[in-house]
């Protein structure tokens, strides 16, 4: 496979796309938020429960979109569960910077771990928003906002 192609569509991404984790409605949920990318029609809802210590105790998502957006959402939910919202805020900014090529996850300090897999989108400007949509949505949910769009 082509370099850029194999970097973008790694097996893990394909797997999360096919069988997304935490792919369900969370009921009841403390927070929820809708994310929409009008360019490609990607639409996701993120649900969130946060305890009194500001720890995310549960998170889920539903919706539909391209493989990058769905895998990113799926991996995000597994990654942030059990984390403090301040930590998540930091991850949001790191992920965002990585997707835009401003942060090199191999050399710059970061906590992205297995989310580094999305570094490949930096080469494809049209796909950056696919990878970051769920993060914007989560961010908005935490901030108590209702709806985000990445356009």
């Amino acid at each position, binding site marked *: 496979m082509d370099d850029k*192609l194999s970097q973008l569509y790694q097996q893990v991404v394909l797997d999360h796309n096919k069988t997304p984790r935490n792919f369900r409605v969370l009921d009841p949920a403390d927070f929820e938020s809708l994310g929409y990318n009008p360019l*490609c029609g*990607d639409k996701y809802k993120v649900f969130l429960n946060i305890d009194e210590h500001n720890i995310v105790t549960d998170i889920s998502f539903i919706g539909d979109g391209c*493989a990058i957006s769905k895998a990113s959402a799926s991996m995000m939910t597994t990654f942030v569960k059990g984390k403090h919202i301040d930590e998540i805020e930091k991850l949001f900014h790191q992920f965002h910077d990585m997707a835009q090529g401003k942060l090199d996850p191999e050399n710059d300090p970061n906590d992205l771990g297995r989310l580094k897999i999305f570094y490949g989108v930096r080469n494809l400007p049209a796909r950056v928003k696919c990878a970051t949509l769920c993060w914007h949505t989560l961010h908005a949910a935490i901030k108590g906002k209702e709806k985000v769009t990445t356009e």
Partner: protein
Amino acid sequence: MADLQESLKAVNKDKAERTDIERCREDFPILARKVHGKPLAFLDNAASSQMPDVVMHAYTDYHSRYHANVHRGVHLLSQEATSAMEQAREDIRELINAGSAKEIIFTSGATDAINLVMQSWGRANIGEGDEIIISTMEHHSNIVPWRMLCDEKGAVLKVIPISDEGVLDLDAYASMFSNRTKLVGIVYVSNTLGTINPVDEMTRIARAHDVAVLVDGAQAVSHLKVDVQQIDCDFFVTSGHKMYGPTGIGILYGKQELMEKMPPWRGGGDMILSVSFDEVIYNDLPYKFEAGTPHIAGAIGMGKAANYIKTVGYDAIHHKEQELLMYATEKLQAIDGLRIIGTSPEKSSVISFVVDGIHPHDIGTVLDLEGVAVRTGHHCTQPLMERLGIVATTRASMAMYNRKEEIDQLVTALHKATEIFR
């Protein structure tokens, strides 16, 4: 004898200048480009087609030899610019067979032209309770302005239904008219489905009810011979960049009697005969609707693009594009899990499709990395997508310069995509 030789020479010269459709590809330097290390297969012509070098040369020529404002200078450069722009108007008039060059208004594109009609004709003629008919397959540019007008005036937007194949329901259309109907806005060729709508017949039906007709020809002019007098529509709009010309330029054709009665929309220089603080006397057509300095280079380029199309000829274009359409349809249909969206018998060289289990955006990226440029998404036709029950499609749109090899490249890349995602 000398006369004969002269005329023979003239004939041969004429032949040499006539562009052969099989060789027209050489006129488009961009098509030799590589992307991601692969030869470019440009199949996104419905979004913007490429420009032949005659268009680019005209563009550069204006900038390097006679760049000046139009209609205001007594100096030579300004006169040359003015006459080049007016020649372009005439060249475009001829292409769509308008009765007079006064009926050709330069705009920034099809969208701008529709907005001009909405702001000028629409606001003067549409009132509360009046009805505007459009179709399910309109581009957002022929929906949003009318939606805005309806909201402002309390008018009603009515929508012609379509079949699952993407064909308009003409019986439904014919029964939609009432004594409140004021306008029909209809797309000639659907940018998403390729469907060619029977605009002649539809205009005839509207005429019988004394209703004005606007035809959105953005996707028509590069593919089929347009004759606005035969269609008998009141308005016709198109964009330069969808007919081998530059971006930022387009036209509104409007019937002269109608446009003479229409109030100006934008005010400024060029659209006036005289100005005082108490009174303004407006200029005649077409300048009444061209306030401010126009996109002169764009207009000149669009005129050259019109001439380029005439030189190749619509017969040759139609033949070549229909051949590509048939070839691509056959090849794409053979791909497992692929479904073509839009199967009207009357269709231009546009193929939208969906593939089971693969989102169009992912297809678009795989194709891009294989050198194939297509468009993915809703193609600015969200209500159409909703009607068809899909979110997005991948769209391959072919122009006169495309080759079967490029379709093959598309098909190979699609196989790659299905391999990755299965």
